[in-house]
């Protein structure tokens, strides 16, 4: 589906419903700030392909057969958001530095039902986020100050509006999955497998066994023979 007026209106309706339900001042604030007739601030994504990779694939040469569909503006907003979720630190780079925005585009452009459902959530959510930022701060989300981006994210993450939480959680799920499957992400989280061992499987390292022994002692359990 396109993120069209219909989708944006669904988002609007969800926020309005929450506002009318009374809830907290936070929801009221967010609901009130949504203008009556939202426009296409981030542009309209291209239509996704209808056909996937099929049931008999050349597994030795994996390729993504469907084209990306997000607009430049959507990608910019997504990039800013995924870097808030996975920022650079001393152990690993930020999400955008290892291609996560492009993967989000790959994901929401896929023709399968689960990804199409995420497409509605994510593209609708990005549009909504952009609108919130412009209304509140007078600039688009990607160009807002860090503090302002964080403020919006905090409100969204802890919102009582199901749609906002769903957007945040799905976006985080995809961002985290995309990031920790990269070389940099696997290294960060401590995955060191996928290496052929031409001897018996050595089992846990000495360090891991020492840690386990401590844990078992704490639990009052014996280390298995």
């Amino acid at each position, binding site marked *: 589906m396109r993120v069209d007026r219909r989708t944006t209106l669904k988002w609007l309706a969800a926020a309005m419903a929450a506002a009318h339900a009374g809830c907290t001042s936070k929801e009221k604030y967010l609901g009130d700030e949504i203008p009556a007739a939202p426009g296409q601030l981030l542009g309209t994504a291209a239509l996704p392909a209808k056909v*996937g*990779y*099929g*049931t*008999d*694939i050349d*597994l*030795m040469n*994996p*390729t993504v*057969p469907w084209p990306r569909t997000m607009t430049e503006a959507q990608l910019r907003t997504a990039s800013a958001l995924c870097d*808030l*979720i*996975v*920022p650079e*630190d001393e152990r*690993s780079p930020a999400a955008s530095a290892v291609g996560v925005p492009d993967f989000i585009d*790959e*994901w929401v452009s*896929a023709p*399968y039902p*689960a*990804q199409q459902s995420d497409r509605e959530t994510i593209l609708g959510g990005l549009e909504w986020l952009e609108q919130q930022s412009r209304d509140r701060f007078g600039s688009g989300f990607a160009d807002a100050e860090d503090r302002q981006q964080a403020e919006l*994210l905090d409100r969204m993450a802890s919102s009582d509006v199901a749609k906002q939480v769903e957007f945040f*959680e799905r976006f*985080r*799920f*995809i961002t*985290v*999955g*995309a990031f*920790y*499957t*990269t*070389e940099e992400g*696997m290294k*960060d*989280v*401590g*995955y060191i*497998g*996928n*290496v*052929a*061992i031409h001897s*018996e*499987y050595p*089992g*846990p*390292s000495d360090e*891991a066994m020492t*840690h*386990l022994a401590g*844990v*078992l002692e704490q*639990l009052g*359990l*014996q*280390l*298995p023979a």
Partner: protein
Amino acid sequence: MQERYDAVVVGSGAGGAMAAWVLASKGLRVLMLEAGRHYDPYKETPMFARNRDAPLRGTGTPDKEFGYYDATIDGGWQVPGEPYASAPGSEFMWWRSRMLGGRTNHWARNSFRMGPYDFKPYSRDGLGVDWPIEYEDLAPWYDKTETVVGVYGRNDGLDNHPDSSPGVLHKPPAPRVGELLIQAACNELNIPCVPARRAVLTRPIGNRSACFYATSCGRGCAIGAAFQTTTSLIPMALATGNLTIVTDAMVYEVRLNDAGKADGVGYVDKKTGKHEAAFGRSVVLAASAGETARILLNSKSESFPDGAANSSGQVGRNLMDTVGAAVSAQFPVLENRPVYNEDGAMGMHVYIPFWLYKEQARGELDFPRSYHYEFGADGRGEPGMGIGHVAGFAGGYGSKLKEDMRRYYGSFLDFVCRGEMIPNANSRCEIDPDNKDTWGIPTLRFHFKWSEHELNMVRHFQAATKEIIERLGGKLQSGDVAPEQAISKGGQIIHEVGTTRMGDDPDTSVTNQYGQSWDIKNLFVTDGGVFASKAHKNPTLTIMALSWRSSDYLAEQLGKRNL
């Protein structure tokens, strides 16, 4: 004039490849028909390929349900052009794989022997039926099968979990941290937690290498360590010079001659769409419990108006699947633990076999059959999209989230129930009067219902699991729901068996103890269809042991010209 083979074998999975190899080894001329395409695991297995190099990071889709790299071709819960249906009020899931080697290319390799109680369940609790054989009848073939297949495990002398003969088993891999943790709790709780048995080599057999402890078995194994027929039984059978394989051959009927014997099968050549026939002195059906029943039910004739080999009316009945349920938990004691390579043999290294047979015999349990535990304890396996759930557990975002990911990754353990279903009148398959596949072959319609026996078993599993989790200070994450919600859907565990069950009585069974049709002497079934009961043990090893035993008998009978 087409060649007339000694045996036409339908299917190239566990039951078919074993039959083909045994028969070809005895000098018999064998034709194997496979409904899917040719498959070469040496050239087509994406060993070591990273999730990030696959579309959607390898996530499962309707095209590839178990993930992009899964060794399933033209298969899954739906096969293009080959539909099936569930009757109103039922939901049955039917996994097929249209490729040489069938589902053996991707299976979990869990390989447990059925035990003495498993062959005589009716005698034990008055439910279902007994098998026409007892454990001792099959034990020599279990030894032979495990020797050829290669199974790691340990003889623990446990009730109803038979030991293998000395020297048969391969040394099991060392347990991982999560497995040791579970083992420690089980030792205190008097629950056995012992080395698992999996069809994975830890010492080489011929040109099949020992496991090198990397790259998922579900993708298939190009070094031959994880057993699949395409790196073992099929090449071995071809090496005899007595096996011919025709792929893309969708068998739809058993052909009968005027004497009422099978003279071959009819099939559609999927490449041309033409109907063809293959001829043999005997026919061996090993197309899977569902597909074999479908072929028989579609083989209608004057002498068999309800389908070939179905004078008992039992073809398609007694459909069983394994009882599945799962509970997962997070363990604070596993947070921030030291990094090491936790891939191991990819599947589980230890498991919990059923341990309450005595209590059950004394009537202390509210369910009559048994289950075992499987574990997902390689918590530090290669990240896939599922790692997003760790972020969901941690909550938040930013630098704190990155710290939490390091903290929580590898702190989750999955406890999985695999239990025995008792056959019931509500679980069966039949020909769908309203539907045909793309080749014009009438399709199957499934009926399926669990009974209170299975639901009570799941409830017991949940309670026992909570006890283990609590002892380890774990926090339940999922699976703590009513048994009706927790139990798997019929077929979902992909252990469907029973549709052409063996027995002692031609009125209540389809075959005798050798998988030989009571009605058609030269027609044999060597897939899971012949199971008279569905022990909690994963069926593939038993399918192969039975297939070997049946094939020995078939060869002997052919030699004596008794067929």
